[in-house]
């Protein structure tokens, strides 16, 4: 049960595991996949309402100072959205939906570094949230018209006269079909289908300009027709390769790489696929093998230690985001359109140093009430109390030997637990 909760959400608390134990496996899975009650935590953390895009006011005549000010304002907006999202991940009760949103963000990996608009990034997150639980077709159809994605992959430069293949290629290679299931000719024809979409920076919306669109006949994946963006998205989503590919990506992130994905995981929608993943016997075998991504590691720890990022003093809040930066996983800033790495790539000497620093900061910020759960146990029992607090199934002899001498110093004990192999790899 703890295994399911650790993977399906960002990191369960001991109380959540207890509640799941009482409810039983079937009801727990149902509650995770389709929560009955509204999410009070999400309701209490509404997305920020951003001011107008600071770039929209700029013209060719704008002064250097005006440009610098617009840049500073934009950076502030990006920080606002990043901080909000982190806070939402911690606050949400519907942990499955929040983690799924992070999955899709890494799947359609779009970085604000090139998009340079907090509003467009926020809009993309809303789109992913709206369609992320459902079937593939509406999701793909919405994403080929998503302003942030269009800017990220040069869609606005893709015109009838000058097709630009970037978006069409990544759409098939990384987002829907996987490499090897289409040809270079499909990329060229797909790019033509996507022509005509431009982004209006003032409104942050995408708009179709018919004169830029190539309305001619195209042959994509063996099908001929006058494909436009929507029809092309529909064609891709209908490919068996697409559902299999996306199910494989979900397996990769939720179950890992050690155990191959079983056949037949793909369901009619994402929630059905997740149900198949979590119900599969192979899923149970993946326990203790999946390296937590830095955001998963951090958000899980924040939840278990009762720390709300938005409630931290400014200095500590900055340290938190600096920690993610040092760990090389800042939301809204994936390193490339291929998304973040996985597995042992996160287990480097460099990332360990960053984890050590962040763990100390987390231990220092832990509420006294949570700390009391550790100190309530007799000294000899504190490593076990720590395992319960951090929802670790148990310590190896190695880690127990490392923790035992720290039992008298609860904050150090906490920090050591957070960097332990058992906690880092779930």
């Amino acid at each position, binding site marked *: 049960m703890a295994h399911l909760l650790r993977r399906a959400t960002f990191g369960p608390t001991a109380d959540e595991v207890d509640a799941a134990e009482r409810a039983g496996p079937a009801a727990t899975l149902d509650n995770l996949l389709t929560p009955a009650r509204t999410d009070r935590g999400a309701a209490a953390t509404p997305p920020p309402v951003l001011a107008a895009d600071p770039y929209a006011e700029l013209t060719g005549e704008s002064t250097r100072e005006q440009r610098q000010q617009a840049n500073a304002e934009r950076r502030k907006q990006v920080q606002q959205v990043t901080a909000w999202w982190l806070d939402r991940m911690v606050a949400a009760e519907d942990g499955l939906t929040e983690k799924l949103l992070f999955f899709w963000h890494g799947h359609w990996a779009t*970085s604000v570094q090139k998009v340079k608009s907090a509003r467009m990034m926020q809009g993309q997150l809303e789109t992913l949230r709206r369609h992320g639980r459902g079937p593939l077709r509406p999701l793909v159809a919405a994403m080929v018209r998503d302003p942030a994605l269009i800017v990220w992959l040069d869609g606005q430069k893709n015109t009838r006269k000058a097709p630009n293949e970037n978006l069409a290629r990544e759409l098939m290679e990384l987002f829907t079909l996987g490499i090897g299931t289409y040809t270079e000719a499909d990329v060229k024809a797909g790019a033509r289908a996507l022509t005509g979409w431009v982004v209006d920076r003032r409104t942050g919306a995408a708009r179709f300009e018919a004169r830029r669109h190539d309305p001619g006949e195209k042959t994509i994946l063996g099908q001929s027709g006058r494909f436009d963006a929507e029809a092309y998205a529909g064609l891709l989503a209908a490919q068996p390769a697409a559902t299999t590919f996306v199910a494989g990506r979900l397996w990769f992130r939720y179950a890992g790489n050690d155990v191959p994905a079983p056949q037949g995981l793909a369901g009619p929608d994402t929630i059905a696929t997740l149900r198949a993943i979590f119900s599969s016997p192979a899923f149970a075998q993946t326990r203790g093998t999946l390296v937590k991504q830095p955001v998963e590691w951090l958000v899980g720890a924040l939840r278990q230690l009762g720390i709300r990022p938005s409630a931290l003093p400014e200095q500590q809040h900055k340290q938190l985001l600096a920690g993610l930066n040092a760990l090389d996983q800042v939301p809204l800033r994936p390193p490339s359109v291929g998304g973040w*790495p996985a597995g042992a790539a996160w287990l480097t000497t460099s990332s360990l140093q960053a984890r050590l620093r962040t763990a100390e900061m987390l231990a220092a910020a832990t509420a006294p009430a949570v700390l009391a759960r550790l100190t309530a146990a007799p000294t000899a029992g504190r490593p076990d109390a720590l395992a319960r607090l951090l929802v670790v199934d148990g310590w190896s002899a190695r880690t127990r030997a490392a923790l035992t001498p720290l039992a008298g110093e609860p904050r150090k004990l906490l920090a050591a637990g957070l960097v332990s192999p058992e906690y880092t790899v779930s």
Partner: protein
Amino acid sequence: MDTQTRRRFLLTSGVVGAGALAAGAGAYRLRDLLDTAGDRDPQARTLVLVTLYGGNDGLNTVIPYGDPAYRAARPELAYPDGEVRRLDDGFGLNPALAGLHQRWSAGGLAIVRGVGYPKPDRSHFRSMDIWHTAQPDRPGNTGWLGRWLDQAGGDPRLAVSFEPALPPLLAGERSAGAAVPVSDRKATKGLPAETLTALAAAEAGESAARGRAAACFADLRSVDEMIREVRDSADPATADPDGEQAPATATGGARTPLDAQLDLVAQCVEAGVSTRAFSVSLGGFDTHADEKQLQAVLLGQLDRALTGFADRMSRTEAGRKVVVAVYSEFGRRVRANASDGTDHGTASDLLLLGAGVRGGWHGDAPSLTDLDDGDLKYTTDFRDVYATLLEQVLGTDPGPVLADWKGRVDGLF
């Protein structure tokens, strides 16, 4: 096509076959290794591999300005004769490459022409996998320098990258290179050394990933010691908190400026550390539109970083043993795409400078008119270059690393 392998390698990346993970779990223990700085053979050369992520447009880097087909194929994107930095009557360097142009004149820059591989793949990721693994038919999950590291004994300090996640090329079958942070962060005071030592112990029956997590504690000690010895008190890279210095890129590359990475390489080389191969990178070459200015900015960064590094290296005995090689996963199509950019292409030139490198042209320039579906036909297999570097720089038999590849670039050293 083996999608899973590719994705596994790309995203799991950094590392590593199951074998290497298992090795991390205890086959070697770094804290038991002495600092090898003194053991280094003073005659041994050092390789610095510079990866340009995103597919650098080779035809606007080493420009075939003497060929009418160049200007005909990309009228807007082509550099006029007057702007090109002449190498000879047919070719010249991008105007942004002033420093490299000087090196060429002094005989210190080698250009290997038309480097590529059979059946070129136009996906950034797939093609980069191929360059990292040196396995064009079916990229596996070990990198070519990682396999060299396996042969060389597996000490991660021999192959170092200054990027937070390990590049696939440094992942071996049984071992992996070390990823070392560029900015000097304070050593951890909080947890006692005994705790970190205890957490480094291998645990029987544990998953490979947990074994790797424990091994990091051991690696941390040895790598940390090595780097601490060489680092100036000044922080070489005061990282921009927003990461906004680096140009935005959709295809990866280090966020730390190239010059800061090379600065740390220089410090390590001058201190005589045991590292034989350094991996550094520059990203942002994934331009498809308005390419000319963007590429010029990046090439300018590359030029300043490389020439600054090469000048510094020429001043010490250890530095004069360093060889720098620069490559990208592919070049671009000969013809412009009319949003003033070029789409993904194939073969491109590879640049080399440093110890014993014989400056000038190597290999044959691909034809601009005899094309393979709009793309250049490669003339030199990239494994010829790798094999030559393994033999001449790392002093190893390339056979076990490159599946008995026989080709070499003759006369490169």
